[in-house]
């Protein structure tokens, strides 16, 4: 039936059912109709029970039932009633009459029906119950949901759950009809059904005529057959049925023709349908009874009434079992859960009970059945079970092929039923467990409309749940804070423009990668980067050792190209080579310039082979007079000249200063070094071993030291003419220092004290000699002043120069490394004064000389003609004084003294009275004394020859030079040379002992004009004779 379409999950198999139904219908139409009778019969019992019970029931319940029913109807069904022409009374009355009729008729067939029912019902009910009992629950719930019905429902629940359910279902249906359910289904359904029913009916009405004809004969047969089985069945039944049917058909046709009646009829038919759909036996009963209703004209209300009565019946029947709703529910639950078997049992019970008191059944029910059949045929939806029954009876009467076919169908149907049964069983179990415990198991029919109940109950349930949830949430919300989160951006995919899309899809087509180049800007493919040339180089500072710098790596060109240089050695070589080259150049120049040589030749004296002139015409030497000359004892060619302040101011930078020039006699063109001094230099000397230190004493009593090795950069230099001259100031000066020990008068003499010279010459090996020589600086300097104070200074070389100057050494030039430390002071005047010559007063000490063989001993020349002999360590010495041959005190100044350079213990002393004495160290009196050699002229210079032991030279104050050769003559000088017109101021002698070829002896003469010339003496006085020293010793011994 169409109503099935609206049903819920339980009608899931609807399409199938419909199909089946249709098949059946076709079959029915084509085949014999009488099986329908059987079916009706099988249904009868249900109906019977109802009818049977109804009167009593009505009596019992009428008082309380009716008012309620009225009330219900009035409250709910006003809309429904209005269209109806009839009143409640009418509707009620008519069915009653019909029922009575049926009662009277149904009696006859009771037994037959009973029997059949007994046989068939268990099977049916097994299935129907399942379906039927499941549904009531949602229906009831839905009903409960309705607020209006609630109160009544409660009451009714008290009376009996089933009954209440029925009642509720009915009412619900009514309500739906009236209001048109909100779910929309009913309206559609309603319309659809209307159409469908009409169609069906028309079809059937046509069929019916035909069927009736057939039936009449078939029924006869069947009746006979049934009579065989059972005892009673009157033939009248069939006729009655026919009659009734016809009558009813007519009525129905009439109804259909009247448009006003259609609505009612449809409604009623629908009710029938819904009832039929319920699988429960009770429902079927009711359905059957309702189907009878159409006999009367007032169908709708009739149906209602029936429903009520049915409910009442059931309620009564089962009151014994189910006193209260809760009881019922539990019972039903129990009944449902175990399975279909139990349910079947219960159903049986029901039917038994129902059948038990069947007595008032009337045969006229058959008529109703006819009608019912028609309706059923037309409207039968899923009443498969009832249809299933047909074949059983058919089988006997049909042909074999048919039978077989039918059997097959039957089997299929059975199988299907079983399946449905299982499914429903499961469903019921499930539901029984899960459904709300409060819902009572009512027997709501399986119907689409009832699904609304289900949803209603669900809604109810969800509402209760929602309430709980709400309560919970209100409680919780007090405890927690909810807030809106920020909007999370889950995905932001910007649109791609068309070009990009195209390129992405097709951009790479027809292209291929040819090559890849790193650094795309660089188009040149050959060179990406230029190789960096590297090489390792190292150097070391300070440059000690042979390897000062170098490179790493064997293939390094630099390494091979750079020769390893022994720098100190190279510098030594260069220094020497430069000197040689310079000398050679000088000689070349002299040779090239004839003007020089004639002059030199002219200036040569008689005693000399040749002469040269030192270039004193330099700008800073002009107009300066030479006051002193000094030659180095070691470097024989080195001479220093002391120039006094210029007569006329020429250079402001040098005004008022004294200049000292260090010359190399082989390089007369210019001085090697130029030294500056603030005060007047009275005497000077070179360091004993190497002539790199120059000591000088000044008239102010200070001792100065020049370190000639110093770098010229720390000194002042002046551009004079076209070349630069470095003017060196003193490295160390005692001026203003050590005032307690320093000289207070002009320094008369400065002498180096050195032992090494002697040791070298005496070949005595000393443990210190090598060390001293190595250092070259362990020597003392003695300075003597007029008052007899002899200061001894220690020359100290600082390990490191300090360009910033020194705080402790105030006399030291910044960057200088040589300083003088005062060692001892020897008071010569004391030793002289306590002599017997005390009355002469304090003797003046004029000169001092240290013994070359023993630096601890020295001789001091005085102004009394006596020469004092002293030691540094205050030792007693044998001759304390060296006296002249003449006795008595004479005011004779012993101005110059000179030890023999050849190691002989003899010395010469020149006196101011013109006498020259030759003393032996061991004797007080002189070996020889020449008083008239210079004609009484004062001796200002006296020097032994450096090449010949027996030759010495003397100078007097009249600028005459005398040469003495003791081997030639021991009485007087062998040669005399007057230096004029340029007077001689100072003289010194330089020369080198005979070596390979060039021994020479030269006189350096300082003239009054300021010029300095070098006179190379003649070979006669320069070249020594054979065994001259032996002859001299012999001579001296003879002189003793």
């Amino acid at each position: 039936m169409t109503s099935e379409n609206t049903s819920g999950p339980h009608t899931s198999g609807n399409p199938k059912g419909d199909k089946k139904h249709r098949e059946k219908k076709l079959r029915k139409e084509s085949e014999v109709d009488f099986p329908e009778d059987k079916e009706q019969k099988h249904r009868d019992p249900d109906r019977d029970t109802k009818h049977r019970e109804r009167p009593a029931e009505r009596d019992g319940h009428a008082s309380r039932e009716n008012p309620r029913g009225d009330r219900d109807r009035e409250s709910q069904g006003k809309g429904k009633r209005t269209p109806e022409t009839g009143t409640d009374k009418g509707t009620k009355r008519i069915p009653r009459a019909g029922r009575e009729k049926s009662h009277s008729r149904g009696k006859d067939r009771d037994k037959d029906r009973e029997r059949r029912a007994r046989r068939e019902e268990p099977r049916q009910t097994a299935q129907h119950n399942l379906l039927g009992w499941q549904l009531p629950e949602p229906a009831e719930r839905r009903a409960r949901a309705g607020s209006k019905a609630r109160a009544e429902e409660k009451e009714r629940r008290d009376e009996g759950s089933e009954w209440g359910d029925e009642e509720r279902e009915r009412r619900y249906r009514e309500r739906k009809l009236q209001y048109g359910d909100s779910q929309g289904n009913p309206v559609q359904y309603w319309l659809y059904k209307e159409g469908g029913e009409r169609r069906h009916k028309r079809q059937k009405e046509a069929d019916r005529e035909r069927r009736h004809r057939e039936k009449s004969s078939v029924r006869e047969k069947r009746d006979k057959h049934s009579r065989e089985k059972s005892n009673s069945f009157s033939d009248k039944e069939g006729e009655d049925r026919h009659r009734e049917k016809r009558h009813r058909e007519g009525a129905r046709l009439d109804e259909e023709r009247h448009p006003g009646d259609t609505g009612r009829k449809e409604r009623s038919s629908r009710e029938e349908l819904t009832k039929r759909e319920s699988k429960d036996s009770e429902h079927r009963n009711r359905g059957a009874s309702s189907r009878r209703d159409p006999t009367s004209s007032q169908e709708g209300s009739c149906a209602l009434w029936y429903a009520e009565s049915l409910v009442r019946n059931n309620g009564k029947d089962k009151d014994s079992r189910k006193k209260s709703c809760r009881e019922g529910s539990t019972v039903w639950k129990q009944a449902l859960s175990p399975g279909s078997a139990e349910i079947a049992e219960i159903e049986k019970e029901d039917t038994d009970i129902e059948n038990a008191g069947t007595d008032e059944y009337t045969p006229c029910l058959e008529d109703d059945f006819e009608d019912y059949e028609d309706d059923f045929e037309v409207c039968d939806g899923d009443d498969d079970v009832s249809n299933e029954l047909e074949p059983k009876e058919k089988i006997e009467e049909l042909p074999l092929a048919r039978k077989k076919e039918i059997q097959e169908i039957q089997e299929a149907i059975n199988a299907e039923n079983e399946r449905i049964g299982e499914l429903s069983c499961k469903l019921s179990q499930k539901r029984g467990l899960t459904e709300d415990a409060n819902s009572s198991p009512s027997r709501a029919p399986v119907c689409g409309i009832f699904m609304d109940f289900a949803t209603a109950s669900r809604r109810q349930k969800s509402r209760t749940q929602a309430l709980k949830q709400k309560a919970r949430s209100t409680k919780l919300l007090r405890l927690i804070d909810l807030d809106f989160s920020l909007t999370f951006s889950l995905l932001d995919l910007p649109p791609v423009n068309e070009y990009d899309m195209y390129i992405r899809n097709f951009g790479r087509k027809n292209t291929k990668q040819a090559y890849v180049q790193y650094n795309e800007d660089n188009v040149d493919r050959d060179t990406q980067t230029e190789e960096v040339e590297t090489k390792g180089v190292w150097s070391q500072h300070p440059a000690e050792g042979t390897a000062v710098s170098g490179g790493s790596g064997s293939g390094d060109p630099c390494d091979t190209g750079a020769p390893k240089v022994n720098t100190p050695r190279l510098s030594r070589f260069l220094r020497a080579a430069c000197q040689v080259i310079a000398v050679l150049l000088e000689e070349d120049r002299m040779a090239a310039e004839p003007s020089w040589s004639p002059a030199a030749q002219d200036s040569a004296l008689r005693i000399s082979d040749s002469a040269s002139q030192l270039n004193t015409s330099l700008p800073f030497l002009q107009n300066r007079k030479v006051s002193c000359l000094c030659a180095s004892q070691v470097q024989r060619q080195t001479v220093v000249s002391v120039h006094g302040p210029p007569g006329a101011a020429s250079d402001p930078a040098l005004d008022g200063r004294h200049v000292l020039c260090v010359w190399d006699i082989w390089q007369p063109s210019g001085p090697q070094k130029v030294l500056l001094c603030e005060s007047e230099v009275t005497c000077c000397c070179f360091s004993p071993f190497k002539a790199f230190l120059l000591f000088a004493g000044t008239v102010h009593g200070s001792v100065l030291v020049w370190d000639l090795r110093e770098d010229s950069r720390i000194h002042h230099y002046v551009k004079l003419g076209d070349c630069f001259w470095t003017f060196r100031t003193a490295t160390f000066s005692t001026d203003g220092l050590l005032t307690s020990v320093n000289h207070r008068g002009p320094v008369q003499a400065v002498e180096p004290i050195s032992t090494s010279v002697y040791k070298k010459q005496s070949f005595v090996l000393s443990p210190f000699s090598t060390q001293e020589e190595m250092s070259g600086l362990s020597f003392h300097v003695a300075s003597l002043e007029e008052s007899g104070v002899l200061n001894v200074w220690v020359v100290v070389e600082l390990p490191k120069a300090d360009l910033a100057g020194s705080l402790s050494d105030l006399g030291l030039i910044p960057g200088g490394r040589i300083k003088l430390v005062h060692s001892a002071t020897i008071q010569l005047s004391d030793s002289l004064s306590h002599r017997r010559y005390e009355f002469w007063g304090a003797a003046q000490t004029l000169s001092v000389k240290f013994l070359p063989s023993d630096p601890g001993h020295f001789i001091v020349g005085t102004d009394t003609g006596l020469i004092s002999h002293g030691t540094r360590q205050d030792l007693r010495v044998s001759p304390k004084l060296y006296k002249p041959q003449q006795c008595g005190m004479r005011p004779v100044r012993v101005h110059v003294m000179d030890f023999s350079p050849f190691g002989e213990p003899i010395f010469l002393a020149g006196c101011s009275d013109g006498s020259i004495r030759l003393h032996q160290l061991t004797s007080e009196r002189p070996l020889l004394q020449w008083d008239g050699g210079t004609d009484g002229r004062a001796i200002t210079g006296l020097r032994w020859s450096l090449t010949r032991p027996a030759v010495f030279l003397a100078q007097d104050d009249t600028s005459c030079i005398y040469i003495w050769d003791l081997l030639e003559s021991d009485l007087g000088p062998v040669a005399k040379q007057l230096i004029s017109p340029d007077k001689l101021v100072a003289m010194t002698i330089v020369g080198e002992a005979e070596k390979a070829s060039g021994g020479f002896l030269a006189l350096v003469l300082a003239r009054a004009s300021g010029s300095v010339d070098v006179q190379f003496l003649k070979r006669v006085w320069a070249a020594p004779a054979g065994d001259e020293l032996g002859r001299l010793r012999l001579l001296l011994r003879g002189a003793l």
Partner: protein
Amino acid sequence: MTSTTAASLPIGTAEGLLETEKNAGESENTYILRPVFQQRFRPSVVKDCIHAVLKEELANAEYSPEEMPQLTKRLSETVKDKLKEMGFDRYKMVVQVVIGEQRGEGVFMAARCFWDADTDNYIHDVFMNDSLFCVIAAFGCFYY
């Protein structure tokens, strides 16, 4: 936007409802207002999980309109199941999966939640390849 999007929202519930109903009536309820620290919804962990699923499932995926609904469902179920295994006790998980075709159209997806920010959190991860994009968002709501 012509690409088909399919979304599915499975909701996993950690507890049965019946229990809470029964408890509700009996006595004053006690509520757990904050999750145990170890069981807190940690986005980083969840992200790893989602990422792993995405990588595994969509590594070589191509977009096809027919398969995507099933794929989204499968993905969401997978993620949900994995999240359940991670032991976020008393958390209700909502996993949303959206798969769309990559056709160059712009897509903007956003989410907004009304929740307790102290306990609830969310994380999402996006997977994209040439043919599709997939967004998986997992929301964890604490059930007090």
